[in-house]
């Protein structure tokens, strides 16, 4: 064993408890949503852990001691925070233990989590030697570990451009660095674990979101579709960032929609942290955040009052800060090291698009449509497209969920332009390697939108499902 059982417990417990403390400060408790809670805690904890690892590298502190101490101190401080959001947080729809829908959802969730565990264990038989997980993500983590700072071997590699795509955000490598710190050495397989756990988090958060916006039986069906979608198996046993993007996008949109629906400030906080998580992952994460903002503005272009409310400073404007900080960290890092990477938005990229667009547009479109219609993707993108065209966004009550089709259209459009800027000779390779990944990242959001639409179509009543009020003493972190 590279990690002792105690180190393995610390590896998982530190981010989880740090995340739980943050959720507590936001007024979100286990009783708020018994399914989604652990997934949110893991996401928020990973973000917090990455912040602590960044501080540790900046000040060249010894780890894991400094990270564990930082997590304990930060968690303690968060538990002391009395967040003044809404007086009483509301839980998700009541859980009817004997209801058929609930039983189906519980069964589907148990099956999906069990299969995810088996995928991770089966994947653990192969160490990291090929693929982006090795060449981008793990290599940067190894350089961080070797240097123990942003200088030394790391700075040297950045200077020599020995690190492919050096301008990528680096939350993923910081999570792997956490494993190296605990092992006291570079590992070749167990460092996937923090990223693999995000697959569990994705299914927990998806089950919670589907149940929140639809009937449990629909949620059960959609959860199975998500877990059997092409790439679900691959991302569960690799340390690539795609599952993190899928998780971040789902939680950000779901939490934002809950905030608009319920008014509880904790949801806005969770959405903000999930947005920061997205921005720190890879360029697709940044693209989703921007695409949502663009889609929102386009849909509300005529509603001046709504737009004015967004730009007017208020206490909740402070929730932009986590996103700004993460963007600033990446920008400062890239400026400092003069980092480069593929998919830079510059004149050369624009020239690439203009030069190769005529030759690439049809093959790229044919490939992506073919992929969307493949049973391996459970036809989710195709069904989403059909439903979005037939019903548009207006069929849904939630203004946030109404934004999803346009958001995905914008994001997919930009990704498409990134594909077609490749030379025709490289196009097939690029579509084969990146096309399926990009399509997968959007699947949880597509399913969430389908869940909410199905609720409207199958349920005769136009009202959303009632929420449960949980009994929490006032002034106790809500």
């Amino acid at each position, binding site marked *: *064993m*590279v990690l002792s059982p105690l180190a393995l417990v610390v590896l998982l417990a530190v981010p989880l408890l740090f995340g739980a403390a943050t959720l507590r400060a936001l007024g979100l408790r286990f009783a708020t949503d018994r399914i989604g809670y652990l997934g949110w805690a893991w996401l928020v904890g990973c973000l917090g852990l990455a912040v602590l690892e960044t501080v540790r590298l900046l000040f060249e502190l010894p780890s894991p001691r400094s990270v564990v101490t930082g997590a304990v101190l930060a968690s303690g401080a968060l538990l002391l925070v009395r967040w003044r959001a809404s007086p009483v947080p509301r839980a998700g729809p009541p859980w009817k233990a004997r209801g058929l829908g609930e039983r189906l959802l519980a069964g589907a969730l148990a*099956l*999906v989590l*069990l*299969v995810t565990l*088996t*995928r991770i*264990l*089966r994947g*653990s*038989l*192969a*160490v*990291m*030697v*090929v693929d982006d997980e*090795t*060449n981008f993500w*793990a*290599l940067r983590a*190894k350089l961080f570990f*070797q240097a123990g700072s942003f200088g030394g*071997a790391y700075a040297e590699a950045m200077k020599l451009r*020995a690190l492919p795509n050096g301008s990528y955000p680096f939350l993923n490598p910081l999570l792997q660095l956490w494993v190296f710190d605990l092992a006291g050495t*570079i*590992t*070749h*397989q*167990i460092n996937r674990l923090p990223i693999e756990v995000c697959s569990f988090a994705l299914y927990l958060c998806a089950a919670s979101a589907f149940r929140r916006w639809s009937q449990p039986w*629909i949620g*059960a*069906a*959609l959860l*199975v*579709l998500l*877990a*059997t979608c092409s790439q679900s*198996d691959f991302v569960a046993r690799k340390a690539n960032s795609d599952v993190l993007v899928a998780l971040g996008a789902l939680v950000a949109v779901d939490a934002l929609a809950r905030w608009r629906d319920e008014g509880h400030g904790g949801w806005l906080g969770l959405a903000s942290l999930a947005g920061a998580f997205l921005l720190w992952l890879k360029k697709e994460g940044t693209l989703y955040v921007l695409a949502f903002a663009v889609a929102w503005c386009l849909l509300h272009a005529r509603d001046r009052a709504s737009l004015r409310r967004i730009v007017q400073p208020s206490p909740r404007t402070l929730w932009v800060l986590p996103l700004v900080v993460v963007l600033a960290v990446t920008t400062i890092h890239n400026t400092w090291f003069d980092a480069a990477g593929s998919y830079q938005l510059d004149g050369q990229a624009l020239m690439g698009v203009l030069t190769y667009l005529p030759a690439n547009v049809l093959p790229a479109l044919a490939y992506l449509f073919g992929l969307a219609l493949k*049973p391996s993707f*459970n*036809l989710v993108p195709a*069904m989403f497209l*059909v*439903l979005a065209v*037939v*019903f548009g966004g207006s069929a849904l009550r939630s203004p946030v969920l109404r934004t999803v089709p346009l958001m995905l259209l914008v994001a997919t459009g930009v990704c498409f332009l990134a594909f077609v800027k490749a030379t025709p000779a490289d196009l097939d390779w690029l579509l084969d390697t990146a096309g399926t990944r990009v399509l997968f990242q959007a699947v949880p959001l597509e399913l969430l939108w*389908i869940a909410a639409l*199905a609720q409207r*179509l*199958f349920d005769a009543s136009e009202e959303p499902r009632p929420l449960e009020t949980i009994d929490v003493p006032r002034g106790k972190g809500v």
Partner: protein
Amino acid sequence: MPKVVVVALLLVWLVWRTLAGTIGLLGELVSIPAWIVPALTLSEDERIARTLEARDEKLGVAPGYHHALYRAVIEHVPPDGTLLFDVRTDLERAKSVIHLGALAFPRLVLRNRARPSADLELPPRTYVLTFDEEVRAFLQGRLRELATGPDWSLWGP
């Protein structure tokens, strides 16, 4: 499109794909006995050996070929050393040696495509892995042969 048609389409899709998906998920569980014991018990070195064996199989070389290469690099090239490997050959397995770079970190693994010239001076702490007889002859007298395999040799100061 009438609403009832869309609802019917949605239902058919949900039932069809959910049933197919559930069968697929249960199918994944059936294979557990075949791999669960090694997955829970193997050390990281054994997992490395297993991964490299898969590479042997893929490239049609004798079992243990890539593991022997990996062991030679780990044992003979110091962590701060540079491994230069010759990729002028057409051998696919020679090109795949770059995969060992991830396992050999922090050793720097560089590909060489240039033909060695008579006045070539190798920097200190540079090691050479070659599959080529011509390069082998060139290295004789300049470096020491540290390890050999069926068609490769590792040279160092």
